[in-house]
């Protein structure tokens, strides 16, 4: 598949709008442009999940790249039993869980900057307003404390908060990705929120 890759790198052409299964079938038959489109479609969500799991841009970057490389290598094993989205999410999460096991408790945060819209988000403005006990706490400090609290959660709890509360996935989708039932997802989400609330109590009181 070297020739199509070289061609693609020189002249990236994608046709957005094609459904995942068609793109996967085309990629399986050696169409690099199809796989490129799949990557562009899911890179933000995959990266986002891995970033929120690691709180480190460099680690998330490496893991995202490795996820897409691994998925490309084993693409022929994708039979279409689940959606491509669920399938690649599982690869990403397995890679991340293994990475976090090796990293253990050595958390080195490398946080991304907040975008321009953060300062204008009414909910966030309210958090740093006079309602917050720590009146001098800026958004950057809140961001750091939140990431610290996230890293204190167990991996399944962190994952469920990331997928539901940050990424906006449904309980059912999370159940498929984590290979557990919806009840387990709900229970994990509840305990994860409780723990986060306890860790961040100083920043949440009204």
């Amino acid at each position, binding site marked *: 598949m070297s020739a199509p890759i070289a061609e693609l790198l020189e002249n990236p052409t994608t046709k957005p709008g094609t459904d995942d299964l068609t793109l996967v079938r085309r990629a399986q038959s050696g169409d690099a442009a199809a796989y490129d489109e799949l990557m562009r479609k899911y*890179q933000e969500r995959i*990266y986002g999940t891995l*970033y929120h799991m690691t709180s480190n841009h460099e680690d998330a970057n490496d893991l995202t790249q490795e996820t897409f490389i691994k998925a490309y290598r084993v693409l022929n094993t994708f039979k279409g039993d689940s959606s491509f989205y669920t399938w690649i999410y599982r690869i990403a999460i397995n890679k991340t869980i293994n990475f976090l096991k090796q990293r253990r408790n050595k958390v080195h945060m490398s946080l991304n900057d907040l975008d321009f819209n953060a300062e204008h988000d009414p909910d966030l403005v309210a958090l740093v307003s006079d309602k917050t006990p720590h009146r001098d706490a800026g958004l950057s400090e809140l961001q750091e404390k939140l990431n610290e609290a996230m890293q204190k959660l167990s991996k399944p709890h962190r994952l469920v908060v990331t997928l539901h509360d940050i990424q906006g996935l449904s309980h059912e989708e999370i159940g498929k990705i984590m290979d557990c039932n919806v009840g387990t997802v709900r229970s994990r989400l509840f305990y994860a929120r409780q723990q986060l609330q306890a860790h961040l109590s100083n920043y949440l009181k009204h």
Partner: protein
Amino acid sequence: MNTEPENFEALQKLLKIKKHEQPPPGYFNELPRKVWMRIEQEESRGSFWNRWFQAFGLKPSVAYAFGLIICGTLIVSIGSALKTAPESTASHSLPQNESFTSVPLSPPAISKIGAFPEQEFTPTNPVTSGEPLYPGMKLRVEPVSFNP
């Protein structure tokens, strides 16, 4: 298990910060290119054995074909070895009319070994086909005592 809805409203608001965390500008434009570059690099520098095992992993038919070739080679080798074995055994077989005399090693014979007369022996090694090993040399039997 208590999963009753609690007031997580403030927490939900705080979690919105995470949605505003963004990687450096242009990051997602470059990511696919970086992935392709790494795929290219890995493909070009992959060792012979890596590619070998990958081919087996991705294409089981290649593994079956390889196994078949190995088995075929083994069967042909064994077959040819069995075919040549009787010929080589025959070349080492004894002449049919060769007569042998055996020396009985019964206790009375051993007891009299000390009084064994000097005599000429013909080697019984079948490889030499009855020809003396050292032509013109007379072999002697040296009496040996097994008693301490």
